[in-house]
């Protein structure tokens, strides 16, 4: 019996073994960005991408003789698209394409920046630590918050009664060991070295609870410098650099009520003007011309060995006035864009920051912004820098202006026509195109857990979009304006680049 069972079992095992799931088909398809790269590489198969580009032109973009014009009004008259724009193309006549990644501020760069700013003066490390409160200070706090609790006004401090009482109890506990006299913390002199910092967020709602980053944060008579970059692969953090010449209480802030981030908040009357970077005059009585201010910034960056930058063509000037109407000062907003193998990156100021719930890995567009006043560089904000890692093509085959315009004319109508009816509410939209440019736009790789992407040539249509609609409750007419990129057309494959998502 056993001799019969064993062969039966063996046959059964063999049969069951044969019934395995069908192996995966080996059909791998490259992602969109890779297909884009492949398309360019195929078309430029003989190109030698190891060759360094020749001298960078002074003006990377040149204006074409041809202008772009277009007019459209939709059937119900709510959408009006008008284009009467200069067209700019790279002076080199080439459209490069590269791989990029999001990182830049190395220890060496930070040291260089530190040395340039402070140049022989002493700068101290700005610490997050604060001296312990004295008994008197705590007593004052306790008394104040207790009054808020007693009078039911804890909401003044944006907390409920329970939270206020908890704070009071903590301070009472702290009071027992608090010093009588204020203990000053001795400042530490900085040598320009970035320090590894560790931060833990106890807020249960925090997305990133534990963050590690490198930081150089200093203060001296030449100003305050703050440079940060994430440690290792901490994707919660993006590089940034902030420099302010003046003390914090004199910083020039942006207006919170403004529709654009470029409008500043000053404590005196001012006139605002739009100037050209080439303007060498002081037409408004300012002490420094726009061109001089621009060159000041350029040389500042050059001293840091940052030469692959180009100021944007238009500069906002804010001319402040004295009580008697005389010119007090002029503050220039000067934005720079990176240039890559002679081609500038598009000037993207109107892109919204990523919301964590929309995009898992935030990657904002690089901004380099100077504020220049009569004394010189007031501040520098350099956020989310990008580094070119590999040249894919020094001259990719791109769509012509006509092809790009065709796409723009069709797609802008489709896109904006859909916006003229919002919740059965009529919206009147005017789109005004003032400039068309062939420049580089950064696209990110989808579904990648990191900040990697491409600089691809794109036809960028700049202008202004104005939306008018009546607010349903108050019936007030609302006027919304957006100035910046109206549409960006991928010059390789003709697709529309969604700048909000980055691809």
């Amino acid at each position, binding site marked *: 019996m056993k001799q019969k069972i064993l062969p039966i079992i063996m046959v059964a095992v063999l049969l069951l073994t044969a019934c395995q799931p069908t192996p995966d088909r080996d059909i791998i398809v490259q992602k969109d960005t890779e297909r884009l790269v492949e398309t360019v590489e195929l078309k430029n198969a003989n190109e030698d991408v190891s060759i360094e580009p020749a001298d960078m032109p002074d003006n990377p973009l040149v204006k074409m003789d041809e202008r772009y014009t277009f007019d459209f009004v939709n059937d119900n008259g709510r959408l009006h698209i008008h284009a009467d724009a200069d067209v700019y193309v790279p002076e080199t006549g080439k459209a490069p394409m590269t791989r990029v990644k999001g990182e830049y501020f190395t220890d060496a760069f930070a040291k260089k920046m530190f040395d340039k700013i402070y140049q022989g003066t002493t700068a101290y490390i700005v610490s997050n630590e604060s001296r312990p409160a004295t008994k008197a200070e705590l007593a004052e706090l306790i008394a104040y918050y207790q009054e808020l609790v007693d009078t039911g006004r804890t909401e003044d401090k944006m907390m409920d009664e329970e939270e206020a009482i908890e704070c009071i109890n903590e301070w009472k506990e702290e009071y027992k060991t608090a010093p009588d006299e204020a203990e000053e913390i001795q400042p530490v002199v900085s040598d320009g070295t970035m320090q590894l910092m560790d931060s833990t967020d106890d807020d249960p709602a925090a997305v990133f609870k534990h963050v590690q980053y490198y930081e150089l944060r200093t203060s001296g008579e030449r100003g305050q410098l703050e440079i940060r970059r994430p440690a290792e692969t901490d994707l919660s953090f993006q590089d940034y650099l902030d420099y302010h010449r003046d003390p914090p209480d004199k910083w020039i802030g942006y207006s919170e009520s403004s529709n654009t981030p470029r409008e500043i908040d000053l404590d005196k009357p001012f006139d605002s003007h739009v100037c050209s970077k080439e303007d060498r005059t002081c037409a408004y009585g300012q002490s420094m011309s726009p061109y001089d201010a621009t060159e000041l910034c350029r040389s500042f960056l050059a001293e840091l060995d940052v030469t692959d930058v180009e100021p944007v063509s238009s500069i906002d000037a804010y001319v402040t006035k004295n009580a008697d109407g005389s010119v007090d000062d002029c503050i220039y907003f000067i934005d720079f864009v990176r240039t890559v193998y002679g081609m500038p990156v598009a000037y993207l100021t109107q892109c919204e920051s990523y919301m964590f719930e929309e995009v898992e890995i935030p990657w904002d567009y690089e901004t380099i912004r100077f504020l220049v006043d009569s004394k010189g560089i007031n501040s520098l904000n350099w956020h989310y820098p990008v580094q070119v890692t590999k040249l894919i093509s020094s001259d990719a085959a791109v769509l012509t202006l006509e092809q790009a315009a065709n796409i723009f004319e069709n797609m802008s109508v489709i896109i904006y026509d859909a916006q003229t009816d919002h919740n059965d509410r009529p919206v009147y939209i005017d789109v005004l195109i003032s400039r068309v440019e062939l420049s580089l736009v950064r696209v990110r790789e*989808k579904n990648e857990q990191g900040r990697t992407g491409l600089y691809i040539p794109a036809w960028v249509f700049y202008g202004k979009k104005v939306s008018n609609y009546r607010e349903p409750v108050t019936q007030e007419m609302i006027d919304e304006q957006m100035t910046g990129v109206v549409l960006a057309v991928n010059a390789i494959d003709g697709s529309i680049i969604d700048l909000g998502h980055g691809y």
Partner: protein
Amino acid sequence: MRLKTRILLCACTLIAVAVTVCCTLILGIVREQMHSDAAEKAEEAFIEARRTISSVDLDADVIDTYMIYKVHDVDSSDAFTLSRDGNYLINNVGFSPDSYMNINEDYRESNQVFVRVFGKNVLLTGEYVYCSNQRFRLTMVTDLSGIDRDMRALAWKCAGVGAAVTALFFLLTYFLLSASLRPVKKLQSVARRIAGGDYHARIAVKNRDEIGLLAEDFNTMADAVEQSIAELKEQNARKQQFINDLSHEMKTPVTSLLLNSETLTTRTVSDEDRQRALLRINEQAKWIERLSQKLMQLVMLQGSIELVSSPVRPLLDAAKETVADSLARAQISLIVSCEDRSIQMDFDLLRSALVNLIENAIKASDPQSTIELIGADNQIIVCDHGRGIPKEEIERITEPFYMVDRSRSKKLGGSGLGLALVKQIVDAHHAELRIESEVGVGTSIFIRFSDAKR
């Protein structure tokens, strides 16, 4: 393997198999339901996305741009692929969904298929989309890794629960079995005691289940065994006593034979003494012969006898005739009276019994007395008017070799086996022997038959 172990193993194996089968079925059902839910959700999402792609009339140069834009505008656009004429316009999923699906071109409805790609289960929902006379293929890829993960977690939980249930079942069964088999152990213990000689050991019966009934039967068996043992012991004792008595009885005549024969062979004796010795030898030999005959009859009566219905009268007459010489010598008369009846009998044995009774009556009676032999109703009665039997001796007189007056009986040639033989014969006839006697008055012996017929 012990019964408890066998039952435990079998039960636990069965429950484990049952739990496994149930869990497998449940997991299968849950998985199907989850896949069905996922398919439904995917269908809804796909239809929602599809709805946003309206057909417009565009140039061929722009149609691809339009389609890419519309798909990018969909929520979770990362999950969608878009292709035309086999070339992907959008694909960030890493594989070619078109290769796995055969979308029905006749129907403008979405198709769904579950596939396994790069070690993951995914659901493909696809459809042909037409725009400006161009046909595009739109597919949504839904990653089902979450379902697989949940199923794995559920499978582990089921395994844990199954193991716990099996373990619990094992423990419960173990205790139940132990409790159920405890009476069997008691049974075993009592059986051992009985086997060891404690025939009084019994099991307390507490309930009426199978074990209880078995215990009852065991107790009944134990009662029977005890009784049999007692009977055997009694029989053994009686046999031993018989042998002892026989030895004792045999000893006397054998001694006498030896003595007398030795006298004759070793000494010179007178003719008178010789004659006396020979006479003595003859008497003892005859006595031994009678003894052995009675013994033989007793032995013969150990087996069953064949009873035949026969009239009583001839039996009594035959008995009278057999003892006629003894009656004449003792000058005693025998009066026979009998009703016309028949009984089941062995004629010779019953005659032998009656002869014994009559000869005992002769020995007990004085000359010129009478002995009655009566056959009436369903009895045969032998009645004498002799010296009678003391009441305390009546119970024992049917024992082999028992004699009320040993010396007198021997003198009269008694062996002590006659009434024992009569008792055996009466018992073999399924009759009852009853003795009534009064010292100095006489003795009546009744043999009552149960099937006497007219």
